[in-house]
């Protein structure tokens, strides 16, 4: 028994390490001075922490650390890209969820589109997005939607609706239709039963799905890269953090990454209770 337990703990620790080490590494790199970024052997724990990297990407002068470290100026700060990403990711997530839950409800309750509809919707999504990158570029050029918030919002919504439909549908299926029927008899219209009775009951599912979709939208690089030039989202900005003389600016990149994690963690924290229930709730799928 003890041996089994020891092995289990060992495996847990190992998995935890695998997941948490990169985070640690990035945190560490973000406060390291340039000299330590690529040092071999790697610097595990810096003795010279600095706010230089954060200063660079945020355009804030925290005060140069000593005078010996060269300040690599970055042509633009990360602030606008982060704002862009926030606007786009949040809008696209909300839009995707609203359309997705409505569709899921229609499919679940009224069998809209036939029995295979949800499946048909998600199957094409299995194609790698790069396959449609070029066609999208052409379309967007014609429609003059390049470098726009709206443009990306539309694409992200389109890409994530299959997920929002698929995932919320299973939660709606698990909610007895009799509750809506009872509510109709009580005096609500069919549609009212959707948002007054059923939606509240699938809150956990909505939370879990929203988080999933937000992460997809927030971290997309490929589509954003394809459809923007002068505008930057957080991921595209990250790719541009290099200086000809230095190569990849690992420190600022790490700092950027740390900042980028914050909204996701924040969102997860806000919906934590619903999240815990949501992950298992829909698992019991008939």
């Amino acid at each position, binding site marked *: 028994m003890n041996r089994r337990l020891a092995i289990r703990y060992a495996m847990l620790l190992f998995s935890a390490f695998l997941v948490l080490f990169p985070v640690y590494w990035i945190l560490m790199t973000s406060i390291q001075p340039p000299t330590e970024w690529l040092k071999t052997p790697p610097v595990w724990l810096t003795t010279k922490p600095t706010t230089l990297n954060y200063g660079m990407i945020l355009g804030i002068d925290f005060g140069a650390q000593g005078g010996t470290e060269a300040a690599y100026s970055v042509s633009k700060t990360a602030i606008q890209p982060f704002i862009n990403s926030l606007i786009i990711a949040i809008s696209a997530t909300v839009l995707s969820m609203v359309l997705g839950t409505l569709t899921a409800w229609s499919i679940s309750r009224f069998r809209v589109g036939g029995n295979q509809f949800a499946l048909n919707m998600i199957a094409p999504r299995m194609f790698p997005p790069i396959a449609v990158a070029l066609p999208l570029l052409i379309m967007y050029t014609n429609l003059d939607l390049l470098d726009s918030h709206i443009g990306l919002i539309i694409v992200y919504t389109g890409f994530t609706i299959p997920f929002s439909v698929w995932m919320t549908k299973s939660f709606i299926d698990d909610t007895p239709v009799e509750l809506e029927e009872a509510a109709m*008899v009580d005096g609500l219209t069919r549609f009212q039963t959707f948002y007054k009775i059923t939606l509240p009951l699938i809150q956990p599912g909505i939370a879990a799905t929203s988080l999933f979709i937000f992460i997809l939208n927030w971290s997309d690089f490929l589509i954003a890269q394809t459809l923007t030039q002068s505008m930057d989202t957080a991921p595209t900005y990250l790719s541009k953090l290099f200086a000809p003389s230095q190569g990849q600016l690992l420190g600022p990149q790490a700092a950027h990454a740390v900042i980028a994690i914050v909204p996701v963690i924040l969102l997860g924290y806000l919906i934590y209770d619903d999240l815990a229930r949501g992950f298992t709730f829909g698992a019991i799928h008939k």
Partner: protein
Amino acid sequence: MATIEAHGLAKQYPVDSRYCTVADVSFTVEDGEYFCLVGPSGSGKTSTLRLIAGIDEPDDGGVSFEGQSMAEMPPNERNVSFVFENLALYPNKTGRQNIAHPLTIQGVEAADRDERIEAIADRLGITHLLDRKPATFSGGEKQRVGIARALVGESSVSLLDEPLGGLDAKLRQELRMLLKEIHQDMGGTFIHVTHSQEEAMSVADRMAIMRQGRVHQVGTPNGLYDRPDDDFVASFVGSPTINIIDGTLENGRLTAGPFSFESGALGDELADGAYRIGVRPQDAQLSQTADGAGYEATIDVTEPLGAETIVDLSIDGQELRVVSDDRWVQQEVGIGDSVGLSIEANDLYVIETDSGSVVAVPDRGE
């Protein structure tokens, strides 16, 4: 207030649905009546109730309230209330909120609302559940909360689908009478679906006997008991079940099993042919000796149930179930004993074998 008419209702449900087909259902419920839809499972009674509520739309036929057609009218415009067989209590609301729901939607004032909730909770004995959630309720408690939610709104038509299913015998009897009382006080029309004929007889002013999507007969409890139209109704209504014996009518006599009767004594002119006789367990008489009785029977098993005794007998291999109110049957005879059995022609229901129609019934002198 509403007279409810169902005419020619028909609906096919998808194969995997839990609801059964309605083939052709018509009946009228008078304003203020307590009406029951009774039948074995699969008879389409729940489906019919859903059609009346408007939860489902019929493929054919229609429903009218007070002469006004309900086609195209969704449930929320019909002013009905519904008790679902599986209750459909909102799991994320407390007992109070569940019961309040219809009132809130109707826009009833908070004070009035609370008063009505307290009143009905008190009547149904569920006050202690008002601030708890359905997951913590027992089966019987869920049932009562479901009933409270349906009746608190005092709608003109209340539809109840097996409201007492799953409760133990004692609780069921108590609640039956409570439902009747509430109906009396409220004055609305009730339509109550059940598979228990005894429950229906106990509460209904009139009832419709259904089987396989059709209505066999509509009538008062005693009326259906005394004058069933066909063999199904005759067997379905009345407990213990009526004894049915196959027989033939020829040469002026109807012979079924060991029993024989003059066809003249059976009333109307009956043609020769195959008939069945039906004898209610309560209509046969037992006597301690076979002298003077029509037949001699041997006791197979007796069940002493206090006021009455259920006796299973055999006469020449023909099994018969009889109910007797006499004490001696309970206390002085047992398995293997012989007793006298009398059945008069006037006690018989006569059924035409081919059509299943009942052609003669006992004259109960009413």
